[in-house]
């Protein structure tokens, strides 16, 4: 280059070369830090929920009285330094009962939600894949069953079990709560069942359960996640309602709902702590679960409104 310039008799500094210093601009990749990633998540709900669940399952460490003990000299005592949340009309310590009874409530919520999920997904998948006749018959069934008020259905089936325990109650709640989920799953499956990968799997002779497990479920699971999680909170509410009405867990099996079944007598005695504390724990747990569930909801991107 220089030799050529000299040969043609041009001074070396006659030209300035533009852009010698040019560098490709690479913006520094910023990985979102731990905190900014956490900020999008419902941290407060998660912390409270973990505290409550952890407290319930390590109840022995927290409670300061025997939950099955009757402190007969301290009946209906208001909250104080010895009995943090007071005692009920049988002289049981409510603070210890709450941590102990949370187990049953949470277990019922999880178990029923599991039953709802399994039945709802399998039923929805079958209905979604099946032909028009079977599909409409199956959906008709869920419509008819769903048109009976859920509380009556549960009442009918609870009569089936002589003494209710955690398992039978979860079964009852689970078996009456899956209609809605099945409908959502079915409409999702309808959309993806003609996709090429499903057809390919069918062509290779995959059985129904394989397609369901490996092709259908992974594709709609995010769409039904909210329904599944809110199934937990609905089941916990149903359990509490039933136990309160005297049709769920008996008073001896401690859960938040069965503690509230003493509410009617507590009203007569005006002992507010018997009613407020178990209910407050239930409500806080439900709200936390819902808040976490909302995280799985699809965000609708909306353009600004015309108003």
């Amino acid at each position: 280059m220089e030799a050529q310039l000299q040969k043609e008799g041009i001074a070396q500094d006659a030209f300035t070369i533009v852009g010698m210093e040019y560098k490709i601009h690479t913006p520094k990749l910023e990985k979102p830090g731990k905190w900014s990633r956490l900020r999008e998540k419902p941290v407060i709900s998660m912390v409270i929920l973990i505290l409550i669940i952890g407290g319930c399952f390590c109840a022995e460490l927290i409670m300061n009285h025997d939950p099955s003990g009757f402190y007969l000299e301290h009946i209906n005592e208001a909250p104080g330094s010895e009995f943090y949340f007071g005692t009920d009309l049988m002289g049981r310590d409510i603070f210890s009962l709450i941590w102990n009874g949370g187990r049953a409530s949470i277990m019922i919520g999880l178990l029923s939600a599991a039953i709802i999920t399994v039945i709802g997904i399998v039923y929805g998948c079958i209905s979604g894949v099946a032909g028009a006749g079977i599909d409409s018959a199956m959906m008709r069934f869920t419509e008819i069953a769903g048109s009976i008020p859920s509380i009556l259905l549960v009442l009918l089936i609870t009569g089936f079990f002589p003494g209710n325990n955690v398992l039978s109650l979860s079964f009852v709640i689970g078996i009456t709560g899956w209609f809605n989920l099945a409908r959502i799953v079915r409409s999702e499956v309808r959309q993806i069942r003609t996709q090429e990968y499903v057809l390919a799997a069918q062509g290779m002779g995959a059985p129904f359960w394989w397609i369901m497990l490996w092709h259908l479920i992974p594709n709609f699971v995010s769409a039904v996640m909210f329904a599944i999680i809110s199934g937990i909170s609905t089941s916990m509410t149903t359990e509490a309602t039933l136990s309160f009405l005297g049709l769920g867990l008996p008073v001896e099996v401690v859960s938040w709902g069965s503690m509230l079944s003493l509410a009617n007598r507590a009203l007569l005695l005006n002992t507010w702590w018997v009613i407020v504390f178990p209910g407050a724990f239930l409500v806080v747990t439900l709200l936390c679960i819902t808040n976490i569930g909302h995280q799985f909801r699809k965000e609708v991107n909306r353009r600004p409104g015309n108003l």
Partner: protein
Amino acid sequence: MFLLGGRQLLQDRKFEIGRRIIRHCVEFAAAMLILSIVVFYFSRLAPGDPLQSFYGEAVERMSAEQLTAARQRLGLDAPIWVQYVRWIQGISRGDFGLSLRYRMPAMDVIAPLIGNTLILGGTGYILVFLFSILLAMVCARFEDTWLDRIICKVGTITYYIPSFWLGIMLIMIFSVNLHWLPSSGAYDTGMSGDIGNRISHMILPLVVMIFSHLWYYTYLIRNKLLDEVRKDYVLLARSKGLGGSRILWKHCLRNVAPTIVNLMAISIPHVLSGTYVAEAVFDYAGIGSLGVESAKYHDYNLLMLVVMITGILVILSSMAAQMINEMIDPRMRLSEVNGWKHSYRRKA
């Protein structure tokens, strides 16, 4: 020629509506039949001795022969399907069986209570939708402002408070401590005709019903309205100089109305379920509290009747909603006729 075609269409439509009503009735009958069979089997298979609730303590003092005789008299010894056929035969004669607990015809126990439930449920139903439409309008008008956000947050919280617990809390605050409102019953004894007394008994159950259902429907209607607000005719109305609230009331609400009516039709079992819980919490004399009680005492005939009446209420009202929907939305009518016309042509 054109006129003739129109008349033909009108006739087709009348024919079509008649066919649809018949189809609805057949569906209704089938649904009731299936419902009754399922309920009957479930209630008969359930454990718990119905004799216990009929005779109470006396059962323990009865001899074996007396027990079998009692079973025979009450028709409890036959196989379940025979009992079912007998029950159906009874219904055709207007006999709905004996309430085992009250020892009188089940219909006589329920009949006076149906009115109470309908008053409570109907008022609650209307109020829930009235408030949820209003709230949804407010949310849509002030979308994404602090007002909207606060309503959304508070709404979600109220929706997840168990309704029975809210009921107890309200009783504790307003009847036990403040003595403002009665805590239970549908009316004080001997005051069934006093409207003021009835209303004061209905306030707390209504508050519970509204709180537990309001947000769910508000949220659905709000989302629908937000979609509507993004349509082009709103922009046109805006550019003509109409105010936001006016567009929302006069145009958007009218366009969303069919969806709301549909929603109201689907929601009936949900609201009725809430009514039953509210009745049970407040000991309001209605079918709901009766149903809970009869489930506790294994009173089959009564429970059956409660479920059947509920089923009839639900199915009838959803059919009514469908018809209203067709009346208020001309688009639905047109598409229906056109759809039918197409299928007719294809056949011909």
